[in-house]
């Protein structure tokens, strides 16, 4: 193999590694346990898991000063995410594939509002709410069609 081909292969390798590193983490809500571990790595947090009757809660204590809880059904799907702390987590990260839908809905809701207050986004297949105030912010997001039977939305907190 000549040096030119080797260099091309090497460059492709670097690009592929960079691409994988940067984007593999962007999947959470609607993802699987792989995405929970990705979130833990991206948020640089410690992970603690508690089991409920029909789901597990993976709590990530992030170094950014927030707590993120991910709700995973026994079939392995992340159906809800909740957080609280001094800021919001990277919503691109925790909302995953639902992020763009969330952004569009926030813009639409702003046009309806007559002042500042918590957000409550109710889209087909996606609920997101952010609230609290400076230093003590909160939020939840869930996929209503993926919530296991018998689990109430208020349980995601």
């Amino acid at each position, binding site marked *: 193999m000549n040096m030119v081909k080797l260099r091309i292969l090497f460059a492709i390798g670097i690009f592929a590694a960079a691409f994988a590193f940067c984007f593999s983490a962007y999947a959470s809500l609607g993802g699987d346990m792989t995405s929970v571990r990705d979130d833990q790595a991206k948020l640089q947090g410690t992970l603690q898991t508690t089991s409920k009757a029909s789901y597990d809660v993976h709590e990530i204590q992030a170094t950014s000063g927030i707590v993120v809880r991910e709700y995973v059904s026994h079939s392995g799907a992340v159906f809800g995410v909740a957080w609280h702390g001094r800021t919001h987590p990277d919503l691109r990260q925790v909302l995953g594939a639902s992020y763009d839908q969330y952004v569009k809905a926030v813009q639409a*809701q702003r046009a309806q509002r007559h002042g500042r207050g918590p957000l409550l986004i109710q889209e087909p297949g996606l609920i997101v709410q952010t609230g609290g105030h400076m230093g003590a912010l909160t939020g939840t997001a869930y996929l209503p069609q993926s919530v296991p039977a018998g689990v109430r939305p208020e349980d995601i907190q």
Partner: protein
Amino acid sequence: MRAYPSGIFLALGIFACFVLFGCGSSSTASSSAGQGTTSTPVSNVQPISVNAGPASSYIDGAFTSVTVCVPGSTTNCQTIGGILVDTGSSGLRILSSALTVSLPQQTDSSGNPIVECTAFEDGVTWGPVQAADVKMAGEQARSLPIQVIGSPNFSNVPNACTGQGQPEDDLSSLGANGLLGVGQAIQDCGTFCTTNAANQATYFSCPSSGCIGAIESLAEQVQNPVASFATDNNGVIVELPAVTGAEATVSGSLIFGIGTQSNNGLGGVTVFGTDPYGNLNTTYNSASYQSFLDSGSNGIYFLSTAATGLPVCTNITFLYCPASTQTINALNFAQAGTNGATAPVTFMVGNGGSLTNSPVDTAINNLAGPQPNNFDFGLPFFFGRNVFVAIDGKSTPGGPGPYTAY
């Protein structure tokens, strides 16, 4: 061909990711902030008004005006109206588009500008930290770090900021020319931002090559102007008259100081100890929730349809829409480990859809909406009350802050 260990690809990938996407780094910062030293009895009464605000569309917002000067100057000054009084945050933030004086930029030790991403319940504000002498009534905070929101000099908002929420960097998205944060906390971030450069996603050092997380000392952080006043610096009182149903506009006062002059005594109010951010607790239907008194929220936002039985409005998911006005009874009590105070609280929930449909009234006493697991007592709660906010660590006749009282 020679085999490259997979670790090399991972390391190069991480490196390339940092180069491509600016994953973050550390730096140190320094700048200046001063303390005032003056005077005896000064005017401590700042007029406030509930009106439609500078965007002409606000309901249940209390606005005031603030004078900012280039530090040390008495002539290079500007008085800016349409500033929202916000007991739920700390620090003065002014839209760049409303600011005509040129204020000095805070920089880090390398001379790079410091820019802040501030997270709120409904979005983020992004803009540089600059210094101003801030004047209200007869009070002054000298060389106070403030945030200038939406500066065209820093128009590229990093992903680390937009990931926390959608920017509120212009008049239509902010709803005000600025926010006057007079909550319990002195700084808007606190000790977390003094030690944690890469992960805090609040303060950034922004050389032309891009923004990276920055350590920010307490003195450098954007902070509650009242705490920096020479006098009357232990808190504020928000005083608004009672509103019957809805009124076109009402006027009131923001009083500086608690028990420091003849006009700001505690009288017969109940003091509720809070955490450093102003949180207390509220019990409703035998369950307890975090709560806070936030003049910067334009309604009483609490719990959910499931918890209250109140339906949300069709197509307006952020407001409750009961068929007829409902009365809510709850119990406020002090944060655990503080003074143990309790007192009942009663408020009304009207039909948010009809109340905000073609609004002509800007002061509405029964606007409310959902906020799961929280009680956010927004501006309607303040009508007909004097609400005290005692700053964290400051002494008052009701004991040291932080507390809220009404």
